[in-house]
């Protein structure tokens, strides 16, 4: 299997695992799913990281983000069909809703005062919620520090 095909299969295995378990997988879980070795999958993870398809944690091994999903808890909790995921930011949280195309609830808080905020989505539309979204970083600088963005 060439690297391009392997990376495609890795990407799909990551997202399949995410959809079925609600969690981002480790390299060992992807390796098991694809019946390949851990080093092959770890190398694939690094290529996907370099290509801005995924973001690895500081250890260079574990996944931190597969946009719009976060592997670690964030202030952006998204519930779809009884399962919850974490978005990296409010845009990504809405992106998770857009991906699933199902009724959803985003539980979050105002970044300024920390008051709770609830957004609901029904029939592929925003059903309730108030507030505004602040894009601080200009688009060309998003990947300068994607964790901050």
């Amino acid at each position, binding site marked *: 299997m060439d690297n391009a095909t392997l990376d495609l299969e890795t990407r799909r295995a990551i997202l399949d695992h995410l959809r079925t378990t609600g969690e981002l997988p480790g390299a060992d879980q992807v390796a098991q799913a694809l019946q390949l070795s851990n080093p092959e999958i770890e190398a694939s993870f690094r290529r996907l990281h370099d*290509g801005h398809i995924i973001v690895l944690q500081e250890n260079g091994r574990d996944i931190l983000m597969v946009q719009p999903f976060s592997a670690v808890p964030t202030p952006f909790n998204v519930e779809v069909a009884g399962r919850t995921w974490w978005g990296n930011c409010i845009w990504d949280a809405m992106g998770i809703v857009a991906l699933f195309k199902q009724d959803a609830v985003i539980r979050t808080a105002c*970044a300024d005062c920390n*008051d709770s905020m609830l957004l609901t989505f029904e029939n592929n539309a925003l059903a309730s919620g108030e507030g505004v979204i602040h894009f*601080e970083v200009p688009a060309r600088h998003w990947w300068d520090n994607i964790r901050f963005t």
Partner: protein
Amino acid sequence: MLLFRSEEHVNEWCQLWNQPKGEVFSLEQGWGMAQAWYGQDRRDPAWRRRTAPEAEEVFKNLGLTSPFWKLT
């Protein structure tokens, strides 16, 4: 990209943390942007990361034409 109760809270947050103010959007606008950006299933073998001109085209179709959204 953070959520705030109102633009006043954005202003307070920028002042408190000494951060520049970027662009502020309504929830409806944000939802439209999320659908345009993330609506395609990334398990699709045909999915690939957008090039800078392709991303700019998405922004343009959403009415995002200020220098803030320039990539090229």
